[in-house]
């Protein structure tokens, strides 16, 4: 072989290697704006502006407190909100306080909403005289970076503010997919029922089932802010059943009809760890995990769809496809004593008009997925693959002994790992791609509580409890027609003593999922056959920003299908990162 042939061969090898490497990588661009000092302490929202720039909202406070034990206590605080406007490279253009005072009253910020291509600020005020909380909207003037015009009252809920022993009243605002309608959900402040105490002061053990009042009020507004649908103290109930449901998800369609997905309270009872610890004897009640979908038309007519009683469902979301059909994507469960373990996924497609079932697809998690996400199965597999036969048999004997000692309940929990994702209780993300295929992302989450005691030389014992919030592996599922494809992504993250505000961001584009985790971008192919990742430099300590000693990320948001914005903060110093995934 002569020199020229060797050169060509070498060239081809290099080209092929580079091409194969490029195919396995994700093209992630990380850019950041200039450093600036923010007003306020934390960011609560960021939105993309029509000119390609961005606008963020931050919150802070004025005032202070002084206390001397429980005797003397002076406290006076006022929440302040600031608007920051950036150019397309996330360099700060202007920073201004958002004035929410009106007629001498302080209104509380509720939400910034983009509706009909305009920005609106929603604020609330608790009127102690009327014992009500009011929701107002005001148009936000982008040029002046201030509220324009008056405060217009939209909704109201009961709120005996001065009285203690009441739960907090609240509003929730959401838009229809085509942004033609807006729905406001209102929840009255409710009297927190005191637990009955026995003669010796111990509270009597009572199940919460059926004691909650799940009534709510909603307002559906059209593009002119006219109320076109309204129901006061509405309750989702089943005919000939005393079961009560609370709102798990809700949506408004392109015709102004509202859909309420009610979750049976029993389901929550099951997924709570306390139930297990309380050793509730009534675990046999777990055949009631139905979800109910109620459609309320603008004319007041209602339709109802109830999931089959035989299907145990852990969680469910509502999605609308292009045809207007309702897609209920859910997690299937299996009862293991007091726990409802997540064993698979389901997709129910309903006709928009009469809620008739068009299709119902269910699938269990695959063996491959379970083997990788259930750590206990992974360790068992590593034992099976051991070459040292003596060690292998020793470990197996130990395991057999353990199994023999187990109670039937413990054995049931031990066996469920082969069929269920042990630490999955809710849907982290659900969406429909351009072809109408539904995708679900699940994240393993669990809380570990470690209590440790330390006795010093003087005999004083100090007990410390540490809370470890685990955010582990991801499970991806996609419904392609009647088929369900699955894959997983291994990860591990622990937050000590405070749970993460948001553990991941997910976007869906061209049928491909992009997930931003704590330090990585994870991307799946359209058929989930490949899941790739890329490490984010922004989250790395080695990536230094001049003028900023350390970086803390407490907030981030997916602003469009392929752009995630995240501010790196250190005290008042801020740099906004723009992470773009191709």
């Amino acid at each position, binding site marked *: 072989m002569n020199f020229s042939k060797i050169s060509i061969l070498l060239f081809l090898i290099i080209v092929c290697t580079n091409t194969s490497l490029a195919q396995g990588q994700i093209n992630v661009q990380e850019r950041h704006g200039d450093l600036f000092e923010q007003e306020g302490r934390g960011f609560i929202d960021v939105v993309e502006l029509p000119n390609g720039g961005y606008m963020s909202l931050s919150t802070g*406070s*004025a*005032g*202070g407190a*002084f206390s001397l034990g429980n005797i003397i206590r*002076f*406290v*006076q605080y*006022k929440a*302040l909100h600031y608007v920051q406007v950036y150019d397309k490279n996330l360099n700060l253009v202007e920073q201004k306080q958002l004035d929410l*005072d*009106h*007629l*001498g*009253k*302080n209104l509380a910020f509720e939400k910034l909403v983009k509706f009909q291509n305009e920005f609106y600020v929603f604020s609330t*005020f608790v*009127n*102690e*005289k*009327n014992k*009500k909380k*009011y929701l*107002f909207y005001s148009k936000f003037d982008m040029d002046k970076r201030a509220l324009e015009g*008056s*405060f*217009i*009252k*939209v909704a*109201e809920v009961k709120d005996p503010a001065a009285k203690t022993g009441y739960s907090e009243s609240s509003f929730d605002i959401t838009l229809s997919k085509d942004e033609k309608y807006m729905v406001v959900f209102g929840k009255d402040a409710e009297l927190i029922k005191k637990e009955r105490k026995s003669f010796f002061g111990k509270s009597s053990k009572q199940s919460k089932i059926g004691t909650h009042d799940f009534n709510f009020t909603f*307002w559906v*507004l059209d593009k002119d*802010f*006219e*109320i*076109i*649908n*309204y129901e006061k103290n509405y309750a989702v109930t089943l005919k000939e059943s005393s079961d009560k449901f609370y709102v798990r998800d809700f949506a408004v369609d392109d015709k102004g009809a509202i859909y309420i997905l009610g979750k049976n309270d029993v389901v929550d009872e099951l997924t709570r760890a306390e139930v297990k610890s309380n050793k509730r004897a009534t675990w046999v009640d777990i055949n009631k995990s139905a979800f109910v979908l109620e459609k309320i038309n603008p*004319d*007041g007519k209602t339709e109802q769809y109830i999931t089959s009683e035989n299907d145990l469902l852990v969680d469910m979301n509502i999605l609308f496809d292009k045809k207007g059909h309702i897609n209920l994507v859910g997690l299937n469960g299996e009862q293991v004593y007091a726990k409802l373990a997540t064993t698979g996924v389901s997709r129910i497609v309903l006709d928009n008009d009469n809620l008739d079932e068009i299709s119902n697809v269910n699938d269990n998690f695959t063996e491959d997925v379970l083997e990788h996400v259930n750590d206990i199965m992974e360790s068992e597999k590593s034992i099976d693959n051991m070459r040292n036969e003596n060690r292998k048999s020793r470990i197996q004997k130990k395991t057999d002994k353990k199994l023999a000692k187990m109670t039937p309940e413990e054995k049931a929990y031990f066996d469920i790992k082969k069929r269920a994702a042990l630490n999955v209780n809710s849907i982290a993300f659900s969406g429909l791609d351009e072809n109408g295929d539904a995708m679900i992302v699940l994240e393993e989450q669990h809380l570990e509580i470690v209590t440790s005691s330390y006795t010093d030389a003087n005999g004083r014992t100090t007990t410390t409890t540490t809370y470890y919030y685990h955010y582990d592996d991801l499970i991806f599922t996609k419904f392609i027609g009647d088929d369900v494809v699955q894959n997983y992504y291994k990860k591990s993250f622990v937050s000590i003593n405070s749970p993460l505000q948001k553990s991941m961001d997910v976007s869906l584009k061209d049928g491909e999922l992009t997930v931003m985790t704590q330090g990585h971008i994870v991307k799946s192919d359209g058929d989930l056959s490949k899941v790739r990742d890329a490490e984010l430099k922004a989250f790395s300590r080695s990536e230094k920003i001049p003028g900023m000693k350390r970086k803390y990320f407490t907030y981030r948001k997916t602003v469009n299908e392929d752009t995630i914005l995240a501010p790196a903060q250190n005290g008042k110093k801020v740099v906004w990162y723009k992470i773009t995934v191709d």
Partner: protein
Amino acid sequence: MTRIVLFFCIGYTLNAFSQKDLPTTDSNAKYYLDDGKNTDADADFRIAATSLITGFLDLAYEQRINHTYSVELGGGYQFNKGVDVFKLVDDGVVSLSFPSDEELTKGMGFSLTAKRYGGEEAISQMTFQALTYRNRTSTFETYKYNAQDIFYTLGWKYLLSNSISAQAGFNAGLRLSKYAHTGTARIKDVKKTGFYGGFSAGFGCYIKY
């Protein structure tokens, strides 16, 4: 004919019942924000509760300049010798020339304060910082005691019920005091400079013009 009228009446009634009674949005924010509370007060007329301990009945009038600043004018009448810790300390040094057991014959005072409120919440419910100049003169049988206090205050303002105000604060500053003999004996004036500070509290009424 009666049947036709009856038919239309029933039809109209049924139609009215079938219509949902929908609420409307309302731009009259004033109605919903009116909770009877004087949160946007222009002035505050207040009595200083802690001054009563020093024997002074201090009344103050605070006027809002804008949503951040206010000025306060105060006047005081001394009705009793009271307990002024800082005077008692000085009395111990000058007791031979200016006996502290003399009867109080007259006492007057005035003060001028500039206040700055946080969060543009002047003057009703917020923390504030203030700088005060206060001049008090107490006349005894044979001498006069004059105290000029210049102090900084970190305080809190509250709205109790609809218009009742409350104020509390911690003060720290300087006291320039002077003992001056008023009798015929040739006793030299004594001037002292020292720390002034402590806690102050008062109650008042918010005024909206």
